[in-house]
C-alpha cells in the first residue's frame, strides 16, 4: 500500500511536465490525457517536434479510417506484466471507438537508474489491438513487428524510429480491415438528433394544442451530454476494448513483414 504511493511521488518528481497525469488511484494507471492525445510520451523519449508530427499522422489516420492508434511510453510499469498493464490502460482510456478498433502501442523504456523497478534493465514493448482489429493484426504479425522492425532499434535504445516504423506498419495492417471516414459515425448521430428534435416538436405541438388539460412538467428532451468520441471513444460498457497480444521475442534476421497489398500505405516518419 505504501510503496506504490512513494513510487508515484518519485515519478512526479522525475517528470514535472507530466505531473498530475499520474494518480495514486487503486489501478495505478495514468489518467487519460485531457485534452485527448494519441501520443503520450510519459517517458520523455520523443522530442517535441517529432511528437507533434507523429500525433498529426495518427489523428489524420483516425479521421480517415476511424482506427485509433495510441502510443504510450512509460518510464516504468512498477514491475507489472506489460500485456496486463497495457490491456488495463487501453480499456481504461477507451482507445478506439465502439467497434473496438483501437491499437495501443505500449513501450517501457530501459531505465537502469530506477532502482525500484525490477525490470529496469529491460526494454519492454507490446502491440495491443482491440477486438475489432484482432483479425487485421493477429498476434503473429504484432510479434513480427516487434521482433523484426522494432527490435534492431530497441537494442540501441533508439525509441523514436522504433515507434514511427511500427506505427506505419500497424497503420498499413489496420487500414485494410476497417476503413471508414470518421464523419460516418457523426452523420448517424446527426440523424438521431434530428429524430429527437422532431419528436420534441411533435410533443410540444400536442401539449400546446390541449392547453386546457394543463400540460404538466415539461419533459426536457435533452439527452445527457452525448458528444461523440473524438479521440477516446468507446462505450465503457464493453470490458474488453483492448485485448492482450504479443509480448517479446527476438530473432536474428529482420525479414519482411507481410503487409496488405493495397497501395494506400500511410507514411509515418
Amino acid at each position, binding site marked *: 500500500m505504501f510503496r506504490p504511493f512513494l513510487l508515484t511521488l518519485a515519478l512526479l518528481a522525475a517528470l514535472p511536465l507530466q505531473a498530475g497525469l499520474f494518480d495514486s488511484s487503486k489501478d495505478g494507471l495514468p489518467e487519460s490525457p485531457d485534452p485527448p492525445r494519441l501520443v503520450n510520451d510519459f517517458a520523455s523519449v520523443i522530442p517535441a517536434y517529432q511528437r507533434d508530427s507523429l500525433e498529426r499522422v495518427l489523428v489524420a489516420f483516425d479521421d480517415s479510417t476511424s482506427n485509433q492508434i495510441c502510443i504510450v511510453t512509460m518510464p516504468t510499469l512498477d514491475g507489472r506484466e506489460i500485456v496486463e498493464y497495457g490491456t488495463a490502460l487501453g480499456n481504461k482510456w477507451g482507445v478506439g471507438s465502439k467497434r473496438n478498433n483501437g491499437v495501443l502501442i505500449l513501450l517501457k523504456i530501459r531505465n537502469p537508474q530506477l532502482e525500484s523497478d525490477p525490470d529496469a534493465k529491460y526494454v519492454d514493448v507490446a502491440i495491443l489491438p482491440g477486438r475489432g482489429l484482432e483479425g487485421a493484426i493477429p498476434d503473429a504479425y504484432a510479434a513480427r513487428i516487434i521482433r523484426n522492425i522494432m527490435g534492431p532499434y530497441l537494442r540501441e535504445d533508439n525509441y523514436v524510429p522504433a515507434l514511427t516504423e511500427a506505427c506505419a506498419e500497424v497503420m498499413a495492417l489496420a487500414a485494410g480491415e476497417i476503413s471508414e471516414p470518421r464523419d460516418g459515425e457523426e452523420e448517424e448521430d446527426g440523424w438521431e438528433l434530428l429524430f429527437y428534435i422532431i419528436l420534441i416538436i411533435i410533443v410540444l405541438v400536442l401539449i400546446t394544442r390541449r392547453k386546457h388539460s394543463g400540460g404538466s412538467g415539461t419533459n426536457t428532451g435533452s439527452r445527457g451530454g452525448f458528444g461523440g468520441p473524438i479521440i477516446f471513444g468507446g462505450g465503457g460498457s464493453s*470490458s474488453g476494448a483492448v485485448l492482450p497480444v504479443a509480448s517479446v521475442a527476438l*530473432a536474428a534476421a529482420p525479414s519482411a513483414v507481410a503487409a496488405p497489398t493495397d497501395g494506400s500505405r500511410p507514411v509515418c516518419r
Partner: protein
Amino acid sequence: MKKWIIIAAVAVVVFWCVGIYNSLVSKDEGVKTAWSQVENVYQRRADLIPNLVSTVKGYAAHEKGTLEGVMEARGKAMGVTGGNLSEENVAAYGKAQGEVSSALNRLLMVVENYPDLKANQNFLDLQAQLEGTENRIAEARRGFNEVAKEYNTYMRTFPNNIIAGMFGFQQKGYFEADEDAKKAPKVEF
C-alpha cells in the same frame, strides 16, 4: 376493505419476488456468457497445439515424451466441461487446463535447446499466437471470476437467497490463481 389490503400486499410481494428472480436469471446469463468466453479461448489454444507439436517434431523428433505429454494433456482437457459451473466442475476444468499449461511449458523449455527451431518463422508465429492466447485466457478467467463473484454475492444475500433456493439457483465456482501461468521469459533488447 381488509380484503383489498391483503390482496395489495400479496401483489407487492409477488412483484418483488419476480424482480429478484429476473435479476438472478440475468446475472446467471452473464456468468454463462463469461464462461463461454473462457471455453472459447481454451479451445483456441487447443486448436493451436497440434500445429505447434508437428512443427517442433520436425526439429526435435526425439523429444517424443514431451510432445506426447502435451497431446495427452490436451486430449484429456478436451473431455472436461464446465457443466453447471459448480465449484467442483470449475475446479476440475481449471485443473485439466492447468495440466495442458504445464505440459506446454515443458515443451517450450525443451525448445530452448534447438536454436534452428527457435529461428524458424513458422515456430515463432505459433509461439506468438500461443502467448497471445495465454494472455486472452488470463483475461477471460479474470472476467469470469468477476461476474461469478457478483452472482454469488447477489444470490447469497438475504432475501435473495430464499428465491434462489426456491428455484434451484446454485453457487458458481471460481478459478484459482493460475500458478502454472509463468511469465514469458524476458528477452533482452
